[in-house]
């Protein structure tokens, strides 16, 4: 329970990391597209097309980039069960924009590859089923390469080496773009899968823990139920012959029930437990809810205090204050002094008549504190009721420092 918060922070950090990776992926894909559009514009300008044509290509290219953003967002939030088409606005409109842009630039330039490239690229961004995307990317690369070759027959035979070189460069970019896009998206998919696996692992851990507890509870209850059944059976047999013995068996059966309950509770409590500062804050909350004005002062390192020893003291003393009721105020403190933890609770003892019962509870915790090398003092001064527990620093767990503070 106490580890829940760090876990939550870790999870958030991871999910931030995943979001960042998504931005790298999306920006990478869009950057390639932007470079290609830019090259296009320069090629068109160099080829001596009119300003009108260049403006059309610039605007069309921007619209295509925007439509790719829509497709990428779709991809990020896609559902595994959905097909590649996610509705009119999400898919068909961006694809239509890509087609229009492709046709426009193809017609203006008179080159096939300019027409095919935007459409091929946008198709890569759809959520294709497993395997389909691989085939698509291979086919579109072959088509693009063929179109590039057809379009470039003149350019490749050109005398000017610069023309040949830039045509080659464009070819590599154009044919490579769909595959680069697909590799980026594939990498993203791998990451998402890993993240899911991690989440599933965490859930599995929790489930296994629960299963273990369930098994423990089952064993414990099974044992006690059998004992109780036998005791009741014996009671039934003895009922007429020996009523006193029957009564004794009934009492034993009741004791077994209590034992079973306590065992189950101990099992459940094994997974409970919060740091002492939280426990004291809970105590203050409860006391305030009960109408007592309560305050707590803690040293900053109070979370290192031995919870297994002081926890029961805090519970017992708070319960006593709550139970007596009618108290106006209570003060709790937990501080470290010279290698010793000191927990103190003071309240106005509203009733002098120390009600029976709380003594035994305090006796129990006093014994436990003594076992850890500490002591519990109870003081009454001017109507105030003090309980002070002191425990040496290293008292949590098995090892007590030899010759430690007593």
């Amino acid at each position, binding site marked *: 329970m106490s580890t829940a918060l760090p876990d939550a922070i870790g999870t958030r950090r991871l999910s931030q990391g995943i979001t960042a990776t998504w931005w790298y992926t999306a920006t990478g894909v869009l950057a390639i597209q932007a470079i290609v559009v830019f090259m296009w514009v320069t090629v068109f300008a160099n080829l001596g097309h009119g300003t009108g044509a260049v403006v059309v290509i610039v605007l069309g290219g921007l619209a295509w980039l925007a439509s790719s953003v829509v497709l990428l967002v779709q991809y990020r939030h896609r559902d595994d069960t959905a097909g590649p088409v996610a509705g009119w606005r999400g898919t068909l409109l961006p694809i239509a924009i890509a087609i229009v842009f492709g046709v426009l630039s193809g017609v203006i330039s008179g080159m096939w590859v300019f027409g095919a490239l935007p459409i091929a690229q946008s198709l890569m961004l759809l959520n294709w089923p497993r395997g389909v995307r691989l085939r698509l990317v291979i086919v579109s690369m072959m088509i693009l390469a063929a179109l590039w070759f057809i379009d470039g027959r003149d350019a490749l035979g050109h005398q000017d080496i610069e023309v040949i070189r830039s045509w080659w460069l464009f070819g590599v970019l154009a044919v490579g773009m769909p595959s680069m896009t697909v590799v980026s998206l594939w990498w993203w998919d791998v990451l998402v899968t890993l993240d899911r696996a991690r989440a599933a692992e965490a859930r599995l851990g929790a489930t296994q823990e629960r299963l273990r507890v369930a098994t423990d509870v089952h064993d414990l209850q099974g044992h006690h139920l059998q004992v109780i059944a036998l005791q009741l059976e014996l009671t039934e047999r003895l009922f007429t012959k020996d009523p006193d013995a029957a009564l004794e068996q009934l009492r034993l059966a009741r004791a077994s029930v209590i034992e079973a*309950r306590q065992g189950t509770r101990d099992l459940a409590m094994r997974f409970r437990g*919060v740091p002492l500062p939280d426990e004291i*804050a*809970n105590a203050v909350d*409860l006391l305030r*809810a*009960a109408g007592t004005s309560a305050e707590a002062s803690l040293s900053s390192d109070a979370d290192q205090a031995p919870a297994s020893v002081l926890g029961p003291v*805090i519970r017992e003393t708070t319960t006593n204050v709550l*139970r007596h009721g009618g108290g106006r105020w209570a003060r709790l403190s937990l501080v470290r002094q010279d290698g010793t933890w000191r927990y103190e609770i003071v309240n106005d003892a509203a009733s002098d008549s120390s009600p029976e019962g709380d003594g035994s509870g305090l006796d129990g915790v006093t014994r436990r504190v003594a076992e850890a090398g500490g002591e519990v003092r109870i003081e009454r001064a001017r109507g105030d009721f003090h309980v002070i527990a002191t425990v040496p620093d290293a008292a949590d767990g098995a090892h007590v420092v030899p010759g430690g503070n007593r």
Partner: protein
Amino acid sequence: MIRVLLADDEAMIRSALAALLRLEDDIDVVAECADGLQAVAMAEKLEPDICLLDLEMPGLDGVEVAERLSRSIAARCVVVTRHARPGVLRRALASGVAGFLPKSRGADEVAEVIRRVAAGARYVDPEVAADALSDERSPLTDRELDVLRTGRRGETTGQIAKTLSLAPGTVRNHISAILAKLHVPTRQQAVLIAEERGWI
């Protein structure tokens, strides 16, 4: 004679406990109720000394019954529960419940608590208190918990705002603070977490 009203929706437990309590010389069970609304009606009619209320009941829960009764009659209320959620103990103490104990206590112990509470004392069972103290702390403020509690059945932001006399914008701010603190995307999930951990 201490006059006791008993409310529990589990008939077997109710009748067994009533029979056991009637065996005590100084306790008389004057009414047995199967749900919260019935308990309120009977208590207002009979004005018992002590109301022994199960926490988990259809209609009104034990703490809600105690809250209503505290406004109308002088009866002192003892709430009994199987799952002692810490948030419930806080709510119970705040609404003036005089006793709180787990259902697992035997009838003799229950009778003892009834006597103590009838004598004017308050009784909080150590087991319940231990549960409440060793529980994970809620990161939410009281106001945020109010918002979650008011909206736990899917009420709209407007309805929550009206019930709590807040501006809708304030409610929305509280809700986004809650979602951020609990790291969940929806109010529904926040309500589930809060209910699971006994905060509301």
